[in-house]
């Protein structure tokens, strides 16, 4: 590790994280319809990026470490996309042991 970042960087990150927490909690009380989960997940993503970049110092990490972090996200995206291809296109049928209607 080279020389560490100034305390100010960490303090600002912490303040930003708490401000985002207050924002997402406040927004959750408003009726935003379909935008509500979009907003809360967007804020969660920003928080996670702040944690990764400043607290986990990805900002100063080697290209190899950054690559591994990105591959982890990419792998998760593949998992979601391929599984989603199944779940998003499959109809749900009643299970065989469901009591048939009208009998």
């Amino acid at each position, binding site marked *: 590790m080279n020389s560490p970042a100034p305390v100010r960087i960490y303090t600002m990150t912490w303040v930003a994280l708490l401000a985002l927490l207050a924002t997402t909690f406040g927004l959750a009380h408003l009726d935003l319809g379909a935008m509500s989960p979009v907003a809360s997940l967007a804020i969660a993503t920003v928080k996670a990026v702040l944690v990764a970049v400043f607290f986990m110092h990805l900002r100063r990490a080697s290209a190899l470490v950054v690559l591994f972090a990105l591959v982890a996200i990419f792998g998760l995206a593949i*998992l979601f996309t391929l599984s989603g291809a199944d779940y998003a296109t499959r109809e749900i049928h009643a299970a065989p042991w469901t009591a048939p209607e009208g009998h």
Partner: protein
Amino acid sequence: MSASVHAIDPRTWRSETASLAMWVFLATELMFFGALFLAYLYVRSHDPGGVAAASRHTHEWLGTLNTAILLTSSFTMALAVRGSQLGQRESVRRFLWITAALGTAFLAVKGIEYAKEWDEGVVPGLHFTVAEHVRATALFFYLYFVATGVHAVHLAIGVVTVLWQSWRLRAPALPPWRVDEIDVTGLYWHFVDAIWVFLYPLFYLVDLHG
């Protein structure tokens, strides 16, 4: 190229290796939690109304308090890592203690929530008395207990590790490998924090308006 490879300072090489190894481990951890997030996505996309109704049983103030506690613990953990890089052993010990205390506070609040949820009968299979949106609520709380439970186990491991690192710093020395160990402990701690950052809106903030 080979000349520059051999020119790497052994200390830098060791720090890099430790950091990279932890990131590889965290990548596998992301796959593990990812499966739970995918299961959640399935339940929520197939029964949004049911999930919204189920989420109203969670205690959003306690969840928000816990999020603030955990974000603050990441801040103090980052300061501990920073202190170790500057060779400030006493400062590192103090911040590690604060981090462990905040982690323990999080687990205590989580325990209070679990006790409330048991009393309210939203524990699928064991104590479940919900009458509306039964299937979605059962699935939602099953995922809630698995995800937050596994997260709590991770955090408990983090608390023990942080306390262990602090205990090992009682002797007046801060060798370079100890600095690396505190650094990767920090990476683990921040990852567990980042997982919670997603669990929080998915379980607590689904439907609070109106």
